[in-house]
């Protein structure tokens, strides 16, 4: 409990410091929709993802920052047969994909500080991502782990609720070249719902 209190106190201090800089800290929940590469083995939408992001305001319309997030994709496949050349394997399958992108980002918010609480923003980022893909056929585990370059465009809405808080809703397309277990590209959509602490009308 003591550690929770200390952590919370640090978070408040951190938020206070970014308030002073006219920037914000965003915690978001991610819904991941598999796209290229991932759909080869997981088609199911993931509701298991979250991220933390910091945005520093360079001026009234542009921000730069960084983020870290975690998307978990998973799907259970009933018994099926897969054939590779002269080899066939039949099993029940559990499949998992973990993506942990660590990114720098930049955003343009043309309506920031115009007095309108509902604002559109767009931007993007790039960085590196940890990728872990697992297929569990029956008792066995096939695991592919790598670090990959990642880039994404993003567009979304920001709803300013008070001087210190705002809600974020955005979509981004994460692109990881040659990161898939078969060396092809990985892509997935993120629908993000976030809550922001910071200075939203400075």
């Amino acid at each position, binding site marked *: 409990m003591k550690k929770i209190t200390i952590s919370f106190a640090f978070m408040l201090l951190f938020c206070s410091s970014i308030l002073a800089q006219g920037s914000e800290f965003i915690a978001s929940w991610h819904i991941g929709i598999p796209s290229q590469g991932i759909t080869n083995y997981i088609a199911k939408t993931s509701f298991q993802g979250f991220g933390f992001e910091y945005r520093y305001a360079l001026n009234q319309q542009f921000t730069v920052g960084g983020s870290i997030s975690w998307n978990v994709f998973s799907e259970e496949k009933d018994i099926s*047969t897969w054939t590779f050349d*002269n*080899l*066939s394997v039949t099993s029940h399958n559990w499949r998992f994909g973990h993506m942990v992108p660590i990114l720098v980002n930049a955003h343009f918010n043309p309506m920031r500080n115009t007095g309108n609480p509902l604002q559109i923003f767009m931007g993007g980022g790039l960085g590196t991502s940890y990728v872990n893909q697992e297929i569990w056929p*029956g008792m066995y585990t096939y695991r592919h782990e790598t670090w990959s370059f990642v880039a994404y465009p993003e567009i979304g809405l920001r709803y300013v609720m008070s001087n210190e808080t705002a809600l974020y809703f955005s979509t981004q397309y994460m692109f990881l070249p040659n990161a898939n277990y078969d060396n092809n590209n990985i892509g997935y959509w993120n629908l993000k719902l976030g809550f922001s602490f910071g200075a939203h009308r400075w």
Partner: protein
Amino acid sequence: MKKLIYIGLAAFALTSCNLYPGGDTRTEQLDVVVTQYDLNADFSTMKTYAVSDSVKPISSDPNSPPSFIISDEMSNVVIQTVKANMAGYGWTLVDTSMKPDLVIDLSATVTRNTNVYGSYPGYGWGYPGYGWGYPWYPYYTTVTSYEVGSFVLVGLDFKNIDHTNQTIPVLWHGLAQGPIINNVDDPLSRVQRDIDQVFEQSPYLNVN
């Protein structure tokens, strides 16, 4: 503000759901059936086969005899399932003295798998290697150990035995493998289903 906290908590609860197979996994979901054939084999020119008259237990340690036996009942299920599938594919069963095109050798092995897991109870993830949690949660190590049983079917080409190197070409093999659980409802049906699957995924054996 309270609503937002509730939304946040709900989102966190959703993201914390258990991902990995746990106690609700049925034993047969862990079975694996593997088949492979020699790309140069031409099964369409073959018609006759022979099969072992029992399933031989083989030890995983070449220096000691097998520590298990295959019951006559189990052995019989395997042999009869092989015969039924081969008949369905148009093969004729003959004695080995008749020089069949294919000889199916039947054997079984038992090995023990041991896994060591680290986990933080209280969080749904509890997954080996991950265990994402917080340092004030106690970290538990769990060791699981289970036996894995395999039935191995090997299709041998007795017509092309290499007497010089004392080798017999393998044209095809099938493996039906799963954890050995004593309280499985109907182990004979489970074995029969897996052996049937060996043939179902080997359509090239169909000489009809």
